[in-house]
């Protein structure tokens, strides 16, 4: 499997999984291989887990110990060159196309607006906690109680229970609902209430 990695601000690759053992790849390093819709941190991808839990390193060590080192090294480079010449150009083009979106993906997650997160995770590990906005909904409930703030509280509960069950899509949608309900609650509750009061004063 040909894997590209992004280190020191530039793309490197393609590498085989075993080669990544010698590369400065951490679970936070962004990687891409054919089939992924975008670059992912290596720790998110199940396929790369052997790289980090030591099983790949053990496998490589076992392989080099049990087989004849000289003949192995002579055969493998030839085979690899044949593969790379036919597929490398195609994959590199695709990788460059995907790299166009790399700039967007590298926004630190803390800056990304949670209500706009819509990336579909295919082989990613458990995604991060979608915001429940429970704090805001409690605050709104006592500030200006309205069906919207109650709805926001219920939505926060939905986010939490979906996330716990592992239904991350529903959790994210509930989180969006909560965000909208809170904004509507503020818009409808606070402002018109104050305006109306000052008008009939």
């Amino acid at each position: 499997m040909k894997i590209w990695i992004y280190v020191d601000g530039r793309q490197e690759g393609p590498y085989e999984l075993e080669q990544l053992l010698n590369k400065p790849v951490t679970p936070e390093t962004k990687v891409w291989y054919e089939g992924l819709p975008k670059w992912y941190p290596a720790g998110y991808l199940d396929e790369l887990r052997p790289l980090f839990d030591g099983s790949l390193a053990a496998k490589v060590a076992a392989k080099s110990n049990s087989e004849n080192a000289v003949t192995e090294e002579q055969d493998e480079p030839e085979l690899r060159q044949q593969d790379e010449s036919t597929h490398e150009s195609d994959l590199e083009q695709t990788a460059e196309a995907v790299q166009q979106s790399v700039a967007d993906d590298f926004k630190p997650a803390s800056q990304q607006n949670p209500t706009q997160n819509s990336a579909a995770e295919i082989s990613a590990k458990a995604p991060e906690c979608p915001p429940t906005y429970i704090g805001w909904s409690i605050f709104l409930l006592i500030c200006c109680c309205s069906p919207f703030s109650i709805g926001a509280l219920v939505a926060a509960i939905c986010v939490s229970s979906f996330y716990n069950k592992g239904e991350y899509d529903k959790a994210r949608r509930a989180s969006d609902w909560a965000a909208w309900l809170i904004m509507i609650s503020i818009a409808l509750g606070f402002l018109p209430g104050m305006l109306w009061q000052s008008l009939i004063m």
Partner: protein
Amino acid sequence: MTAIAVVAALFIVVIFYYNVSPESGLMPQCSFRLLTGYDCPGCGFQRALHALLHGRVAEAWGYNPFVFFAVPAALFYIVVESGCRHWPELHRRATSPWALWGILLIVVCWWIVRNVI
């Protein structure tokens, strides 16, 4: 930065409430109370806040005691949620379904109790 905006908004609100008294009529009314005549969980919050800002804690307690728990809880959750990456374990426990259902339960109980007593 949202943090600065939030702090500034809080500051303005605090000053506003310090100067505006309930008699001036500038405080919005609760729509639930207008419609049904019963208190909502937050009724009296603004009067309580006003009293607190002027140092009259007992009076504030009389208007809406729930606020003394709800406001710190709300602040706690806002902080924990925005920093959920720093304290993942705490965030997980605090926003578990159990905790949130418990909050809803407490709010509903308070809603009923304050109208019955």
